[in-house]
């Protein structure tokens, strides 16, 4: 192992971790905007940096800064190191899970096969279950160390729900292992291939439903959000304030993102695009790029123009100029692309690395699109379904999901035996 190996390993880890970290504010923004539009409001749209509002995305930065500068209240007589450890552990468990998730298909560059993932772990599914279940310790630590019986009981409820749904999660994952013959998420995604009805969401519909339901409960999202119950229920984090409190919610959003990426790899073929497998894309890379280039130029020009024409004096400050500041550069970029097509087109379209680049971009886009679509289901469900009662949550986990998981496993084994 030389310095090159170490720097490649470090680059993989940093890129993937940075991706998850940067998707957290995006998901919070999606949630706030989604909530707003479902409730017929506009959502966050005021905060700005030098006039740039970015559709309200800047609010997430403002929130983070506000929470960081808030006073931290630490109750008297608590076990201080553990109070600090609990939110850090929650965040760690949610983000470290991503190590087993592939974000692109295998790309061959200069005789080497590369994949955008931290590691192709043979026991990827076991790793995902193991690391994400560390979150239970965070909940218990937070509740037990807070020195009040309310947070103690809240932690008991949260941990009971967490471990109950973990069983269903494991059962559903086991059926996938049976179908794909591998515990590695990369292999499971590759096994599904580019044929739509070979995706596990269609081959294993029951496992998919169980996995999604369990994931909602694990991330403590509505309709299973009894552990936190934003405003109504006293939960395990009642003694937490400031950023230490927000860490639990960052962990929740990280959990949703990583969970969605896991679902994309397990049930929706990961980087595979329906009916266009990687070989086909690589063989036709030149044609795809030749079509995509002018389309990109035209779309940039039109989108830039439609943004720029929304210029209107409304706020009386820098925010008024945002449409122009964003729209004009987009138009210029579109025009530049169109002009460059004539002299540079042939040179770039005939380069050796074009097939690898096109497959990578399409595969990565597919993973990201699937992940964000699944994550938006979490937002949609949150503003659609009411909350379960606690006895209903436990009954659903133990009396429906767990037996359904066992049944699914036996039926899957029987079908595999029948088909040979």
């Amino acid at each position, binding site marked *: 192992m030389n310095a090159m190996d170490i720097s*490649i390993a470090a680059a993989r*880890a940093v890129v993937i971790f940075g991706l998850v970290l940067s998707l957290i504010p995006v998901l919070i923004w999606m949630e706030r905007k989604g909530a707003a539009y479902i409730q017929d409001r506009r959502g966050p749209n005021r905060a700005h940096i030098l006039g740039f509002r970015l559709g309200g995305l800047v609010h997430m930065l403002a929130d983070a800064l506000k929470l960081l500068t808030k006073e931290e209240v630490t109750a008297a007589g608590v076990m201080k190191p553990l109070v600090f450890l609990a939110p850090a552990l929650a*965040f760690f468990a949610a983000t470290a899970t991503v*190590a087993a998730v592939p974000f692109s298909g295998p790309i061959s560059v200069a005789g080497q096969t590369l994949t955008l993932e931290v590691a192709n772990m043979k026991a990827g599914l076991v790793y995902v279950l193991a690391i994400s279940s560390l979150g239970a310790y965070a909940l218990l630590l937070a509740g037990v160390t807070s020195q009040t019986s309310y947070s103690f009981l809240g932690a008991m409820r949260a941990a009971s729900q967490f*471990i109950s749904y973990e*069983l269903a999660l494991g059962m559903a994952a086991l059926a996938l292992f049976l179908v794909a013959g591998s515990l590695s998420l990369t292999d499971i995604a590759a096994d599904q291939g580019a044929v739509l009805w070979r995706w596990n969401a269609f081959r294993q519909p029951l496992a998919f439903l169980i996995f999604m339901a369990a994931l909602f409960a694990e991330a403590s999202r509505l309709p299973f959000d009894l552990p936190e119950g934003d405003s109504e229920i006293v939960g395990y984090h009642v003694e937490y304030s*400031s950023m230490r409190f927000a860490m639990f919610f960052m962990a929740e959003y990280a959990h949703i993102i990583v969970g969605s990426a896991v679902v994309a790899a397990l049930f929706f073929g990961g980087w595979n695009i329906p009916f266009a497998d990687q070989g086909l894309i690589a063989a036709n890379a030149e044609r795809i790029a030749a079509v995509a280039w002018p389309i990109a130029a035209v779309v940039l020009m039109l989108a830039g123009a439609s943004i720029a024409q929304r210029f209107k004096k409304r706020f009386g400050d820098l925010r008024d100029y945002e449409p122009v500041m964003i729209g004009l550069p987009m138009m210029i970029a579109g025009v530049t692309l169109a002009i460059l097509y004539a002299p540079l087109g042939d040179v770039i379209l005939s380069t050796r690395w074009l097939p690898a680049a096109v497959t990578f971009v399409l595969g990565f886009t597919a993973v990201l699109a699937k992940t964000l679509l699944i994550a938006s289901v979490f937002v949609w469900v949150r503003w659609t379904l009411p909350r379960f009662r606690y006895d209903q949550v436990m009954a659903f986990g133990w009396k429906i999901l767990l037996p359904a998981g066992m049944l699914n496993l*036996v039926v899957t084994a029987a079908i595999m035996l029948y088909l040979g």
Partner: protein
Amino acid sequence: MGQEFLAVIILLIIAALTAVGIVAASALIGRRVSPEERNIPYECGLDPASRPFGRFPIKFFLVGVLFLIFDVEVVFLIPWAAAFRGSASLGNGAVLAVELVVFVSLLALALVFAWARGALEWER
């Protein structure tokens, strides 16, 4: 292979450092004006009336025990699933399938027992 796991270890270190870093940054940056009264644990503004580690419903303990049993079941089934694929292609998958049915139905029986004894019931 070594390089692959190096990347995982680096990711674990980065995640841990970030988590600790954010908590520490919050503790350092946040302002501190804490009057005595604010440090009392939350009980709706009154002086705390309950003890932090009081008794708790036995249900939570039962759920923990049942979780252990069925989680170990999942763990035991992983090597079974690994063996099943191999032997199914050799033609003697039926033996392993019967083993699965026996194992799972034993645990299903345990679940039914716990269910019948009311271990899964919660008061409304």
